[in-house]
């Protein structure tokens, strides 16, 4: 189905419509379940049928994320920074498309949609710059009382499960995934249930930014159906509950205790606020290394 933005160069040309699919392991599959669900704009008009991911899709996404972890966490911070910056470049070139999709998904003015896309692109640039600076800010050497060299540094925690904010379809999504992958984690993210389409289009920018397949895996569908499997998955290290209303968080946070997941559960999400460091810190571990000094 077309989005509102599906404009054709000439009025009489029949537009080529896009199928909105999942993004797993660098590929764009439909749900293995064959399911889809209708996505409507703010006034109820049909925008598209999005893939309705299943538990199996989610498990496949975790496998892809785990497989990608060694390579992505082992890439140099400089390399990760360049790739995140490349994502911003890819978005900039498709600015008009993203603006139209955000406006179609959320309503509101064209100016507001444009501002959201601006902010989303700028957020990639902000985190692109952090990749090779965070370890210097969060780590350092420790003056222990003995003949040892001792240093601490932040390391990515592993595979992070994220439920993206439900309102800001693009800026919200970028704000939660960019800090996770900036430090070298890989991610399985469930997009806004009602407004998933801008995130799916963003995956196309990711796929053309040299981001290795599996670093970011995108699911669309029912948060209620998918989130418990994500929260309870034994090979997921962290859980970001930003996109779940507070009343729905308790069972997910309980399931997360099964393998001592790090749970990030901010009371509120403000896409316009200074992102700060909390999302970088939340999904990193501090490693401390000792070695004797002597001749």
């Amino acid at each position, binding site marked *: 189905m077309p989005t509102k933005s599906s404009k054709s160069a000439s009025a009489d040309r029949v537009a080529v419509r896009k199928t909105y699919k999942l993004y797993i392991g660098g590929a764009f599959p439909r749900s293995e379940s064959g399911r889809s669900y209708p996505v409507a704009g703010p006034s109820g008009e049909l925008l598209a049928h999005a893939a309705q991911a299943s538990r199996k899709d989610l498990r496949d996404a975790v496998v892809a994320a785990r497989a990608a972890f060694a390579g992505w966490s082992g890439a140099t911070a400089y390399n990760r920074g360049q790739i995140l910056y490349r994502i911003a470049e890819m978005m900039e070139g498709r600015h008009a498309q993203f603006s139209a999709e955000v406006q179609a998904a959320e309503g509101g003015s064209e100016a507001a949609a444009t501002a959201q896309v601006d902010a989303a692109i700028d957020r990639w640039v902000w985190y692109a710059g952090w990749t090779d600076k965070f370890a210097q800010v969060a780590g350092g050497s420790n003056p222990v009382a003995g003949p040892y060299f001792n240093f601490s540094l932040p390391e990515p925690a592993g595979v992070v499960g994220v439920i993206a904010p439900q309102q800001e379809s693009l800026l919200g999504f970028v704000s939660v995934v960019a800090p996770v992958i900036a430090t070298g984690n890989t991610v399985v993210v469930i997009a806004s249930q009602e407004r998933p389409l801008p995130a799916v289009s963003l995956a196309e920018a990711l796929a053309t930014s040299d981001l290795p397949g599996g670093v970011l895996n995108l699911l669309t569908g029912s948060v209620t159906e998918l989130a418990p499997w994500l929260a309870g998955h034994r090979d997921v290290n962290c859980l970001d509950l930003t996109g779940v209303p507070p009343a729905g*968080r*308790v069972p997910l946070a*309980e399931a997360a205790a099964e*393998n*001592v997941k*790090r749970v990030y559960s901010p009371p509120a999400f403000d896409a316009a606020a200074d992102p700060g460091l909390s999302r970088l810190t939340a999904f990193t571990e501090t*490693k*401390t*290394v*000792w070695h004797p000094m002597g001749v």
Partner: protein
Amino acid sequence: MTEIAKPETGFVYAPAPESAGIARLKPSYGIFVGGEFRPGRGEAVKTVNPANEEPLAEVAEANAADVEDAVAAARAAYDGGWSTLPGSARAKYLFRIARAIQERARELAVLESLDNGKPIRESRDVDVPTAAAHFFYYAGWADKLGYAGFGPDPRPIGVAGQVIPWNFPLLMAAWKIAPALAAGNTVVLKPAETTPLTALVLAEIIAECDLPPGVVNILPGGPAVGRAVVEHPGVDKIAFTGSTAVGKQIQRSVAASGKRVSLELGGKAANIVFDDAPLDQAVEGIVNGIFFNQGHVCCAGSRLLVQESIHDELVESLRDRLATLRLGDPLDKNTDIGAINSAAQLARIRELSDSGVAEGADRWSPECTLPERGFWFPPTVFTGVSQASRIAREEIFGPVLSVLTFRTPQEAVDKANNTPYGLSAGIWTEKGSRILWMANRLRAGVVWANTFNRFDPASPFGGYKESGFGREGGRHGLEAYLAH
């Protein structure tokens, strides 16, 4: 084995015991709430000396009502000025505590060895001085929090509920209390049921240092008291050190409640020895890694990964070294291996060790006469251990080492990381680039290279994966006690 002659040296170690009287044991102890010492309203429990099963003192434990009182006292102290006291004033209180621990170091060391069973050499040289150093370190942070990297004006969280284990009773109390107070929080601390005594002497020290009443409250008790502290709605932050199973229960019980949590849980550390390692140093590191504190150490190097080509040579050296360890009276200054802390822990060590034999590993211990009374377990080495074996997967928390082999560095990394835990790891090799390559890939919060089991107040400590989250020690340790 204190009095056994070593035929290869001819030396006999004469007993060199510390006097138990130095501990100034009292017949009974209670709880410390709102600045007052009083009997708890829970059970009266005898705490025993694990080296001879003799009762040391009676402890009137806390009950749920005492938890209510303690949380209320901590809240009143928090609101009543501690959280807004200038950092420089909080610092001075903490410096006082550090100095007072140093003043009473010998008393505390003897008391710790009596109550816990650990060798006096360790309580004297590690537990007590490190506890004092921890207070001294965090004292200095109290008026510098704005420079710690957690925002320009970081705030305390509130009342911290802290539950600690029996393996380093005083040191764990220091790890919990010092950063909490430096950041402006108040504390309700529950020591372990089998080792409450040094925490209660610490309470005396805190009282003598004139800390405002209620800033620190100490509640001896069992698991029910711990649960009441953790689940109390007036507690804003929970810090727990103990088993992974209990840690998961705590995480579940406070899920999405808004309470902050830090967990320091179990481990199954790999201590990895390459063929180019200096073998004598590695053997010392292996012994320290698994037999320090009878192996009652969450970061103990309980899985020895040896490069295949040196397996036989290393195991032989290790056995020779173990034959010289002296097991016996914890108060004897010559003792290397003390008593197991409790009958329950001894039963667990025995059960897991028996499972190792049942699963086909080869068990070895040096010739070793165990005292007739008390809880004792000889240093034990299993060779021929499979990765799937229970003794290679489960935390034994005792003086039991499982030896496995590897051929390549990558295989060592894969085997070391093949565990749900991720607290610590050791690397022994002369090759610097290999140390850094390994350190980078080991999924563990502390990596010791050519050393093991080193601790320092300035050095962050804590785990990856199911070994918990949050760090204790260093600048990083403040994060767990600051609102952000």
